[in-house]
């Protein structure tokens, strides 16, 4: 057991942990848009760590460069993909369970529209 193997194991384990947690999150979170969060983020860091561990294991060779290219592609493609799934749901009219807020970035005021409070009814009763 040299240092390289240990670093590889730690990174691999951490990456798998994040992916497992993301999977649990997809099951546990209440509505569609909330589920986009673990699906979009957990996988991104998880795959990055797993590929990083393989890069450490491989040392500095051409395969490392290829793994790095794969990592960069997934880092770009994963958020783009989850954005388009979310956009598709938004355009199709999927309603989030909670209020829709209008945020004005210039004045930093957060104004919750009163009509959308109705969506909270089920959650606040429990």
């Amino acid at each position, binding site marked *: 057991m040299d240092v390289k193997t240990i670093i590889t194991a730690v990174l691999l384990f951490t990456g798998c942990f994040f992916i497992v947690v993301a999977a649990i999150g997809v099951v546990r*979170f209440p509505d569609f848009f909330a589920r986009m969060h673990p699906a979009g983020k957990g996988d991104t860091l998880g795959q990055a760590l797993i590929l990083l561990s393989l890069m450490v294991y491989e040392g500095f060779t051409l395969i490392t460069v290829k793994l790095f290219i794969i990592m960069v592609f997934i880092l770009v493609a994963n958020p783009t993909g989850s954005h388009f799934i979310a956009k598709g749901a938004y355009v199709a009219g999927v309603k989030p369970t909670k209020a829709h807020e209008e945020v004005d970035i210039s004045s930093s005021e957060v104004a919750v529209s009163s009509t959308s409070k109705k969506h909270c009814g089920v959650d606040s009763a429990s």
Partner: protein
Amino acid sequence: MSFILTFLLMFAFWMLLSGQTQPILLLLGVISSLLVAYWSHDLFIGKADIGQGIVRFLRLIRYIPWLLWQIVLANLHLVYLTLHPKMPIEPTMMTFKTNFNTDMGVFILATSITLTPGTVTVEATRDEFVVHSISKTTAESLVSGEMQARVKEIEGHRV
């Protein structure tokens, strides 16, 4: 100019992927790179200002470490939310106004928002973003606008 640059990039990429140095294979690589460059140089670079593109690329490289750190924070936050027995989440949709000059800026900001703690981009255009956020605090950190300022710096605004 764009043809030569595309050819060089394609050939470098071909070399990376193949790793072969036999003359016949190199010749095949040159031929395929030339074909790809001929067909797609006007899409890949086109009339873009190459000098400005390089400056933006260097600024983007300076932005990446901060983004990676934000990704780690996002995942720790996500692990906390997922494994907490009561799931202290408070999902909200919100819209805010932006003003970007380039599609590249919109793309970088949208991707960054998706990757950073508690927020996912739903709709992104040059003047308006719709963002789904999973708790109040993360929404407020987005409203403070640090990320927007950083992305505009890449684009080359005077902030």
